[in-house]
């Protein structure tokens, strides 16, 4: 049974929900976010990003450009990183969705969160949840032997995760404060740590 949360109850009240113009089709759905089921009733136009932020009040996932150009909205679907702004919430019923809130908690940080803190890999912090979710997804791709544009020969397996590889693989996440050197260092720390940085 989906768990009812205060956020969802608020979302169910018209005043707290982005108002749909009269007659705009809505749909009931269940979203599985951070191992919790949420029952929603949304305008079908609602992006996954808006569902997370405006309906579930999981505001760790950020809206930057809303066009898939900045990566601030990066979340993990079944462990894979995607832009939450460029997909509809209704398309993700049944998927395991992980946001920054599901990776770790202040008292039990994910290794990537801890590394970003240790390396001071941010200035304003707005892109950071997307950077971290993206980096976590990226290390899974590396562990699976996926090549990148920086891989000298795409036939090579496994891939050696050089700094050039990390930069290329993280190019979908922009940082307007240009904290890139420390983002790179944080990711390198985790990748060279236990288990190649993959979540336990």
């Amino acid at each position, binding site marked *: 049974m989906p768990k009812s949360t205060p956020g969802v109850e608020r979302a169910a009240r018209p005043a707290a929900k982005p108002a749909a113009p009269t007659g705009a089709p809505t749909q009931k759905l269940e979203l599985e976010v951070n191992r919790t089921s949420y029952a929603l009733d949304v305008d079908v136009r609602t992006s996954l990003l808006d569902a997370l932020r405006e309906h579930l009040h999981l505001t760790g996932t950020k809206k930057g450009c809303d066009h898939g150009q900045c990566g601030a909205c990066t979340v993990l679907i079944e462990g894979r990183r995607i832009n939450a702004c460029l997909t509809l919430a209704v398309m993700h019923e049944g998927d395991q969705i992980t946001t920054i809130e599901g990776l770790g908690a202040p008292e039990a940080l994910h290794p990537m969160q801890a590394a970003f803190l240790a390396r001071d890999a941010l200035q304003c912090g707005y892109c950071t949840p997307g950077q971290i979710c993206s980096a976590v997804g990226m290390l899974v791709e590396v562990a699976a032997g996926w090549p990148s544009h920086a891989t000298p020969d795409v036939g090579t397996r496994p891939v050696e995760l050089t700094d050039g590889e990390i930069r290329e693989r993280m*190019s979908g996440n922009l940082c307007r404060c240009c904290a890139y050197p420390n983002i790179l260092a944080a990711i390198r720390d985790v990748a060279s740590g236990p288990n190649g940085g993959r979540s336990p």
Partner: protein
Amino acid sequence: MKAFTYERAADARAAVAAAAARANAKFIAGGTNLLDLMRLEIEQPAHLIDISRLPLQAIDDEPGGGLRLGAQARNSDTAADPRVRTRYPLLSQALLAGASAQLRNKASIGGNLLQRTRCAYFYDTTAPCNKRTPGGGCAAIGGLNRNHAILGASDACIATNPSDMAVALMALDAEVELLGATGASRRVALRDFYLLPETTPHIETVVHPGELITAVVLPRAPAGRQLYRKVRDRASYEFALVSVGVLLAVEKGTVEEVRVALGGVAHKPWRALEAEAVLRGRAPSVAAYQAAADAALARAVGRGHNDFKIELAKRTLVDALTKAGRP
């Protein structure tokens, strides 16, 4: 975004039946281009048919050494597939040169083929655009056209096709498998799939309304070195100014087989058969590559800001052929 209704198709037949039953319906797969266009109200479908979970995600060996890419195979999975990496490295390289990892994890093979141009005037709904509003005019002609077409353009449209993947598929002689509303399937060579703008730039492919791409089929790749070379304004996550996909086989000092396709230069991924004809049977040399590049761009026309692309395309092609032709 305009309101629309939504359904998730159970299988491919149900998807085409649903499209036939509704006016102004569109399929949605990865959605990475379509939703952006819907948000800008450039695309205004009344009904969306979600095909992202159709069982069209497999990549299967074909008899004779080819490969069949399910239309719903993700760009990332396709680029990482060991058979693609070893037999069609050109395709893997082209996919990896496009977009970002997040987008490649969403984008499908079929959707990539149908993505719309990134002409800034197409996206600027205050500007005239024959592609967006047929008969409306073209703001790119006489406007800021640095990114625009140098081959096959018309007085109605000078937009380019933005796909990297399609450039590789063009060089690899891919075919597109389509399912129609009646349940009949047909195959179209990718070379015949895209249309030049002429006077109808809003019609971009030969896909019939309601037809669904179910697969892209690659014939066995000829022996030879494959290489994708992309030139862009930043090192990653940017569309091509010019890109080149080549396959080159040199046997006993002679070019046995050669394929040349160009991206970022035309309304469609551009197969340069003239360049191939120049090289086939000839001894590989920089002079020969230069002659091939001259042939490929012989009919190129600049529009002012994009004049540099003609020389850039030639140099990029010579560079790619030189690298592919090294012993």
